């Protein structure tokens, strides 16, 4: 039955492709989380009325964020080829996709982080200041914990973007389900492969969404 419906599926290849998609998504997610929070914090702290209010730094960071968000992902990958080659030593395979994935999604997540931080009650920050808190304490004990549910929902949205990006990166040789669907499905006219890859990607998206929602709800004590 399985063989009749999906004659061209090689379980071994499918497994490897799924594994590569997870591998790229999770590593890119970790990188995006770290760089996104850094960007978001910089945007938030340097904005007007912020703790490190600095018009020029804020403008510089905002410009970088805007520029990288404006570049279509598929072009960003091509643009980053020399950089990737220098950093990873190759432009093929899952590892080579990581710089582009992180650079492509960290600015987006950075904006979400900025929005989340702006939602933190100003009064609570003022209270922390009135207790004599250092900026570091305010960042790690007030800003980040108080915005954590929004940071988690933000990274969930970003994760789903990243899964989409891995498929795009796959088409130009990064591996994963996108790669498998394009080279083995589309180019060989074996559409059962395309179909199965689609189903798997949708399931992975659902999985990330479910985990994200669950964690965000658990963290929210409001």
């Amino acid at each position, binding site marked *: 039955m399985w063989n009749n419906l999906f004659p061209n599926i090689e379980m071994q290849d499918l497994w490897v492709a799924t594994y590569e998609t997870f591998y790229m998504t999770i590593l890119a997610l970790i990188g995006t989380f770290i760089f996104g929070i850094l960007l978001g914090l910089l945007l938030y702290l340097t904005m007007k009325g912020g703790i490190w209010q600095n018009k020029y730094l804020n403008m510089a960071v905002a410009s970088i964020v805007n520029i990288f968000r404006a570049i279509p992902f598929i072009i960003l990958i091509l643009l980053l080829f020399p950089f990737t080659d220098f950093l990873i030593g190759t432009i093929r395979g899952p590892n080579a996709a990581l710089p582009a994935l992180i650079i492509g999604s960290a600015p987006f997540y950075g904006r979400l982080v900025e929005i989340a931080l702006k939602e933190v*009650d100003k*009064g*609570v920050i*003022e*209270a*922390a*200041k*009135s*207790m*004599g*808190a*250092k900026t570091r*304490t305010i960042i790690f*004990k*007030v800003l980040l*914990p*108080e915005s*954590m549910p929004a940071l988690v929902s933000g990274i969930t949205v970003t994760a789903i973007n990243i899964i989409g990006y891995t498929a795009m990166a796959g088409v130009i040789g990064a591996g994963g389900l996108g790669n498998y669907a394009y080279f083995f499905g589309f180019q060989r006219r074996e559409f059962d492969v395309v179909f199965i890859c689609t189903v798997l990607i949708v399931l992975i998206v659902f999985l990330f969404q479910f985990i994200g929602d669950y964690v965000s709800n658990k*963290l929210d*004590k*409001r």
Partner: protein
Amino acid sequence: MISIEGLSKFYNTSLSRITAVDNLTLDIEEGDIFGVIGYSGAGKSTFVRLLNRLEEPSSGKVVIDDETITSLNANQLRVTRQEIGMIFQHFNLLWSRTVKDNIAFPLEIAGVAKREREERVQELIELVGLAGREQAYPSQLSGGQKQRVGIARALANKPKVLLCDEATSALDPETTNAILDLLVDINERLGLTVILITHEMHVIRKICKQVAVMEEGKIVEQGDVLDVFLRPKQQVTKKFVEQVMGTNDEDDGVEDLISTYESGKIMKLHFVGETANQALISQIAKSYHIDINILQGKITQMQQGAYGTLFVQMDGDPDEIDRAITFITDETSVEVEVVRDVE
């Protein structure tokens, strides 16, 4: 304890300069509960934030406990702030932390060791009456309970001064009273100096010893709460006193009432804060051979005693009435004003 000299705060906008606090000079004694009252926009919230430099003063000097706050650098200011507790209208608790961890927060900032921290938190929880709620999150507490957490948190580092910014304005009257009682209790037990900002005269009446009335960034009237209640000079102060005592319209009603009495003397008794004289009426009735008829009045209790007015009619031998009046004016703090002499 706290001395403030020529304190001002301006905000510059592109078009004009707004003066939030205008050249304030003030001294507050140790252990005092000092009230600052004013309508919104009077600059009282800015004023209290200037004291711990949550707002940077434009000019002037603030000295708290021999420490010149206005000349500290950023690091010294942080350390000094740990000795100045502050509570807020909207409590400003961290929703992500339990009651216990919220109270522990200032101790973490001050670098207190974990074991010591836990002991201190437990003490504070007992002090503010929240035992059993240690593990609750702020969202599970009522407004009054949240403010108790706020107070415990403000007291964690054993401050010498407690700043209260509209601390009861978000609470219902009953809860307000409970929180005010707690503040008085803390003031007496810990000898803490309390500065309290409010727009409710009721709060001033109930717990303050000294009061300053603010309008347009200036202190327009200041003194003992009783004096201010008894002889409000400024229009704004009169309005605040009316909040608690009712308006003078009631006196108009008295005029009609008075005209219906055809004998004796009608007089207005001003009670000013001596609890010892609360049995005044029965004392006079017993000592002098006159009848006393209470017509109308309102007496309210304050931190330093009773305050209010009472309209009475005294009937009987005129000489005896005069003797009674002499007794009241000479022997008690109650002031007598004869409204109408029938004879």
